[in-house]
């Protein structure tokens, strides 16, 4: 191969040409995105959108979807969107009782920036299932949390804010569990007492080692309920009221479940089903008229076996928060209670 130029030079020229040809492709045109490539919707911006932007979007990258979007909801349920005037007060309370305590506990907003779900999807009505129960919230894939019944929220009503607190901490616990799993030791504390139709069970959940009826649905719900009720109630109510409950009830040896009605459980007042016709004859609206019928053979319940099981669950929850997220759960509990008091002041 005889050429005027040496192979070496040709190689250089070729390399230079390649370099030129590669960079000559560079285009400076800005990438123009389609106006809207998912569904194409025409929607306005309001003062509420700006307020939510300041409250949650900018600091935590949490989008609040309050406008109706059927695709976010299971079509088997009839649901309606929230009232616009309810959204900002509810989200403000929500931030106070959910994000603020974690910030106070971890010392910065980094934890919530990292672990908070990226979307809160709001429904105005509760989600009512065919069996008559309601779904208050759902957490999906660590990414979004669905909160229903926003129309009934009230930022100054402690009970309503506590409902919201319980709901968001329950769902957020699912998110935390979805990011870092808890030990399966938790699932074997009360393995045989998880039931699908938990709402039909007449048994006091504490007797079996559960913090609530819903906790009996399955272990993941149990975990979320244990966390969220402990945060909602605070240490005082949990230790001194929930765990120490001991309302007397008719001796099961004499009165099997279903053989008596409850008049006032806190006062230990029960009467026999078979006495009902006789009671109706003499009942004149006063307690005295029916008190002779109250069952006298009452026993104090012994929940110690259940309490012991619940204590085991509590220990796993505390250890999980420490090892997975380096959070002192009891201190978080105190912070949540402080925030709740402040929010409803």
């Amino acid at each position, binding site marked *: 191969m005889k050429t005027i130029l040496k192979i070496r030079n040709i190689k250089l020229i070729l390399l230079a040409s390649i370099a030129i040809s590669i960079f000559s492709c560079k285009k400076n045109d800005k990438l123009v995105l389609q106006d809207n490539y998912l*569904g194409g919707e025409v929607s306005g911006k309001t003062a509420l959108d700006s307020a939510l932007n300041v409250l949650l979007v900018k600091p935590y990258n949490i989008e609040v979807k*309050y*406008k109706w979007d*059927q695709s976010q909801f299971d079509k088997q349920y*009839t649901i309606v969107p929230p009232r616009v005037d309810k959204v900002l007060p509810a989200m403000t309370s929500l931030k106070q009782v959910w994000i603020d305590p974690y910030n106070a506990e971890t010392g910065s907003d980094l934890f919530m920036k990292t672990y908070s779900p990226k979307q809160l999807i709001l429904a105005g009505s509760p989600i009512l299932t065919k069996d008559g129960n309601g779904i208050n919230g759902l957490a999906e894939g660590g990414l979004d949390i669905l909160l229903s019944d926003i129309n009934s929220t009230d930022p100054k009503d402690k009970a309503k804010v506590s409902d919201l607190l319980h709901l968001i901490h329950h769902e957020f616990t699912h998110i935390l569990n979805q990011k870092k799993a808890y030990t399966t030791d938790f699932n074997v504390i009360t393995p045989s007492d998880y039931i699908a139709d938990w709402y039909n069970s007449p048994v006091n959940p504490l007797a079996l080692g559960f913090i609530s009826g819903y906790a009996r649905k399955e272990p993941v719900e149990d975990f979320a309920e244990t966390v969220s009720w402990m945060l909602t109630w605070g240490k005082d109510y949990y230790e001194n009221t929930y765990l120490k409950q001991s309302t007397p009830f008719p001796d099961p040896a004499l009165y099997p479940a279903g053989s008596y009605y409850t008049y006032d459980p806190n006062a230990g007042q029960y009467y026999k089903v078979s006495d009902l016709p006789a009671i109706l004859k003499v009942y004149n609206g006063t307690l005295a008229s029916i008190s002779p019928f109250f069952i006298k053979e009452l026993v104090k319940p012994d929940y110690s076996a259940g309490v012991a099981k619940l204590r085991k669950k509590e220990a796993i929850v505390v250890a999980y928060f420490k090892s997975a997220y380096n959070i002192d759960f009891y201190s978080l509990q105190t912070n949540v209670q402080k925030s709740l008091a402040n929010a409803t002041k």
Partner: protein
Amino acid sequence: MKKYFFYTYILFLLAGLFGCSKKDESLVFGNAAQQRALTDLKKDQLLLTSAPYGWKAVIFPGSDIGRGFFFKFNDQNQVQTYPDPSLKLISPAYGDPGISSYQLKSLQRTSLIFDTYSSLSILSDPQNGVRGSGYSSDIEFSFTSASSDTIRFTGNFNQTPMTLIKATAAEYDAYQKDGLQVFKTALINYSTSIMGKKLNLAIDATHNPECTIVTDKDNDRTFTLIYTDSKGVSQKQTTKWGPTVNSLFFQTPILYNDIVINEVFYDTAKLSMYIMWKGKRYEIVAS
């Protein structure tokens, strides 16, 4: 070996030179699908917002009587609503006139979505009516047909029919002055006045079919026309109606011979009902 490197370089050069060849593809329909969809949405929004005095509306939920509304849409995606006064009986807290938001969205069909809670949501709220499903109504509607002054919708969830009719200045004024309540009261008085009487739609000497109008007094809202057709067969047509500020607007039009009856008007001076057909008025005579 070196020789092959040489060819490799040539290959790179060719790739570099031809790799960025760009030919702009022209689109068959002019614009990208998304842009065409958006254009349609804008057009539909313009149709809604361009009615200077808003829209009279009637809606027929699956498990409820016909209901009347008034909507005035603006280009900021807000809608002013004047609801059927009877909705306040279902939901005392939310049954008042108010402003909420709406959006248009390309779903299976172009849809009008009342995307925050309004008095219309009362009919869909699962806490009202049948627990869990409300009154089988809708808050999301597809455009089924549209003329310049009437738009018909079908609900996306429960197929609830809804009709929007362009309002006049006088009608808009009436809605703002609690016109639906005034009309409701008038209808109750009317139904008292015709009690025990026979109603006939007087077209001409040989055509005077019998009508039955059931108003709020009996908590039902239907209109029935009974007549004998040209073959001598007795016919009966019944439809639900929803109130506008001056008429009973039918869910489905009633056809009598070649007359299409969409609504029955109420004459507040004569205290009687009539229909309009091709610019002419035909009375419903009580006797």
